[in-house]
């Protein structure tokens, strides 16, 4: 008898069917993993259970009784608490206020701060953490914030706890602490729904697994029936390797050379190189400083020390314009808010980096814009209705191609991509992999930051691993394996492949 059951859940966002007829059935006292690739609908499903989104159709039953979850308060009342992937803390509030925000102790609208801080301290002590109830969250590190988020979910004492990628920002020791918490909760008879795309964690922790793919329910299995290969097959469906074949390209000149790049408190002594024809991955935990490293290469952040050389010449990049001039392109992970110009047309979106180049007498040449659009449409196979269509109406994959095209249009030779396939479907994903491969064949040097190890392992010639702002691994393709990368990423090991240029 299932304790919590979601039947035929549908959820539609403008332009996307996030969930169609998804079913989830979890038994009391088990750790139930929900897995799937990015965009499979895991987080959407959890947000529906948490009362953050409303479903368009379907039913939710808890203990056999149908219940309506329309708000976060409903969800809490039904004994569900959720740890979301995006941290949901209020930086201007203290740790204690954050944890108990939805159930502050005290009478008549007043807050009993003594009681609040006492309770919080007890909770913190029970996990052996080193934070104080009165610390402001704005002063905490990313992993400490993640722990506060976990404490917040535990504070409700809910029967069902949903964890959406709780380990994304945690180091090894903290992950162990979390494992301990989960096992203890299970021993107490609580039900845990655990979302992760780290398969190792799934096999370590869970009793049963539900797999989602592209918003659809694929199946539920006991963990014993599965091995890693079978699980991946369920997640990916069409094996991505059938859609995309890695090809080796000859390496060319050294295009980018980073030496001793440092920024106080963020990263230190980062050195690596990129050569023409190579796709290099960059792995690491959330908050390890990967994004900051590439942002400071591109001139979005300042660094304190170190040098950047392009084509063997040391260059001074103070702002993105300098980077663009030096032939470096950058594609952000935050496509919606920092990648596309949502309300502008597809044509305008492609030329923003190079308006000066395509202007005559200070007037932008529409003909040249159209020419560029046509070139890249052919080259990258974008699909849109007409050139005045607003880019926000395109699919995620098409939008991403435009962001890439904008970087390429400015004539770059070095491409830095952050999470290039986040939130786009499998077909488009394969297309982008293919594109990256052909770009590297044409002599581009490509650096890919990705949180998905399978992605790095399938497209990269070499991968750099970052732990706490330092390079702890430089692993060649034939030595790459998920465990090794994770060990380097959590400070458990360092590994520098022989013969690989750092």
């Amino acid at each position, binding site marked *: 008898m299932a304790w919590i059951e979601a039947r035929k859940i549908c959820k539609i966002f403008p332009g996307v069917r996030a969930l169609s007829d998804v079913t989830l059935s979890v038994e009391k006292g088990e750790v139930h993993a929900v897995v799937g690739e990015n965009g499979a609908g895991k987080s959407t499903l959890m947000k529906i259970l948490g009362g953050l989104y409303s479903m368009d159709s379907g039913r939710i039953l808890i203990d056999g009784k149908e219940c309506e979850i329309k708000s976060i308060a409903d969800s809490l009342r039904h004994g569900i608490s959720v740890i979301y992937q995006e941290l949901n803390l209020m930086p201007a509030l203290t740790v204690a206020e954050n944890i108990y925000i939805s159930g502050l102790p005290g009478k008549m609208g007043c807050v009993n701060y003594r009681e609040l801080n006492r309770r919080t301290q007890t909770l913190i002590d029970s996990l052996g953490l080193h934070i104080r109830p009165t610390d402001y969250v704005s002063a905490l590190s990313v992993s400490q914030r993640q722990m506060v988020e976990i404490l917040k979910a535990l504070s409700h004492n809910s029967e069902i706890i949903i964890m959406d990628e709780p380990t994304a920002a945690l180091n090894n020791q903290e992950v162990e602490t979390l494992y301990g918490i989960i096992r203890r909760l299970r021993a107490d008879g609580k039900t845990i729904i655990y979302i992760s795309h780290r398969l190792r964690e799934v096999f370590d922790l869970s009793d049963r697994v539900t797999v989602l793919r592209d918003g659809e329910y694929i199946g539920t299995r006991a963990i014993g029936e599965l091995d890693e290969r079978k699980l991946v097959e369920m997640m990916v469906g069409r094996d991505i390797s059938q859609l995309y074949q890695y090809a080796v390209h000859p390496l060319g000149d050294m295009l980018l050379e980073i030496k001793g790049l440092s920024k106080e408190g963020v990263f230190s002594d980062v050195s690596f190189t990129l050569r023409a024809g190579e796709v290099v991955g960059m792995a690491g935990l959330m908050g390890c400083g990967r994004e900051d490293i590439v942002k400071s290469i591109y001139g979005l952040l300042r660094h304190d020390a170190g040098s950047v050389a392009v084509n063997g010449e040391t260059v001074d990049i103070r702002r993105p314009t300098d980077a663009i001039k030096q032939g470096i392109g950058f594609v952000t992970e935050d496509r919606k808010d920092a990648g596309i110009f949502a309300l502008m047309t597809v044509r305008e979106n492609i030329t*923003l980096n190079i308006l000066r180049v395509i202007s005559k007498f200070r007037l932008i040449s529409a003909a040249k814009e159209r020419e560029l659009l046509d070139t890249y449409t052919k080259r990258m196979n974008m699909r849109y209705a007409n050139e005045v269509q607003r880019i926000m109406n395109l699919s995620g994959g098409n939008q991403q191609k435009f962001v890439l095209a904008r970087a390429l249009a400015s004539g770059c030779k070095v491409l830095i991509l952050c999470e290039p396939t986040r939130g786009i479907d499998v077909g488009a994903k394969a297309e982008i992999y293919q594109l990256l491969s052909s770009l590297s064949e044409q002599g581009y040097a490509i650096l890919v930051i990705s949180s998905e190890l399978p992605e790095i392992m399938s497209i990269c010639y070499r991968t750099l691993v970052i732990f706490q702002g330092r390079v702890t691994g430089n692993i060649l393709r034939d030595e790459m394996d998920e465990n090794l990368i994770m060990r380097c990423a959590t400070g458990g090991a360092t590994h520098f492949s022989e013969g690989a240029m750092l």
Partner: protein
Amino acid sequence: MRSLVKKVDFRELGIFYALIVLWLVLIVTGAPGFRQFSTYQSILQKASFMGICGVGMTLCIASKHFDQSIGSMSAFLGCTFVMLLRAFSDRPPQEQVGVTVRPDGVEYMGITWTGILAAFLITLALGVLCGLFNGVLVAKLRIPAFIATLGTLYVLRGSAYLVTDSQPYVINQQITEKQYALFKYLGTGVILGLPFSFWVMILCAVAGGIVLRKMKLGRDTLAIGNSVEASRISGVNIDKTKILVFTLLGGFVGIAAILNTCYLASENAGMLQGFEFDVITTVVLGGTALAGGKGNIFNSMSAALFFATLTVGMPLIGIGTYPQRIIQGAILLFAFSINEIRAQMESRRVKAGARRAAALKSATQP
């Protein structure tokens, strides 16, 4: 023609259609005055001041900013203009010897054409400087635009009182017949049946349209309105763009202030209170959302005409000054919430479509 159809999204011209419908309704129902050409002339006259400032404000709002100070700014610039004309006169009126009297009986005294030109140029330059000041506050000191310009609103209003010493001034005391005719022409002249200032508005709108659609500045403006972060990655100079946008707005306000002063032939420091509301209302009615990222000069101009029709028309059909304030507030609220309403309708439509598609899919797949 076909390329025009391709380039212009006719669905986005809502306010233009609304204007046409409004005029048709007023004509057909025989609303008082709306079958006389002179009514339309005064509408165009009124719209032109809003429209000229509206060009600058469209750019400003498209960049996700906002300028509350333009009412005070135009009062300040108008006052400065009049005071400059006085200052460039040969002698202050009270010291005149041998006053010459014009045929219509108005006293005048000498001001050179160079003096008039200088007054024009200095006023425009001051407008640009005021805008620049706003721009620097917003771009360099990172003060949110609405509050920074709230500060300049009061500073400029106070400055207007300062330069005029709280006295009202009229123009025609200081000039010769020909010069008087010039100011009169600037203020109330008519070319091809349309007021002179309306032609100026059209010129400004064309210039603004070229900036917005055809120049890097316009693209950058839209870009930072869409996403500052994405613009930074694309190498847009964000501070410079913001400053230029506010500076341009200041220049347009300068033009409008001079025309308005000529139209009224007088100036006092207390005038044009709340003019910023009119301009912001028209721009937002024209579909330039406060959330930034898009802007359409043609729509802003249509909205200026629409709004001017209402302000001219309401007294004609017997709505008093005071209720007009409430109506204007309501229009403003409506204009600001229309985007939200539209977005909700849009998402409902998309969802309904997707649901139909899903139903169809499950019907075809047993």
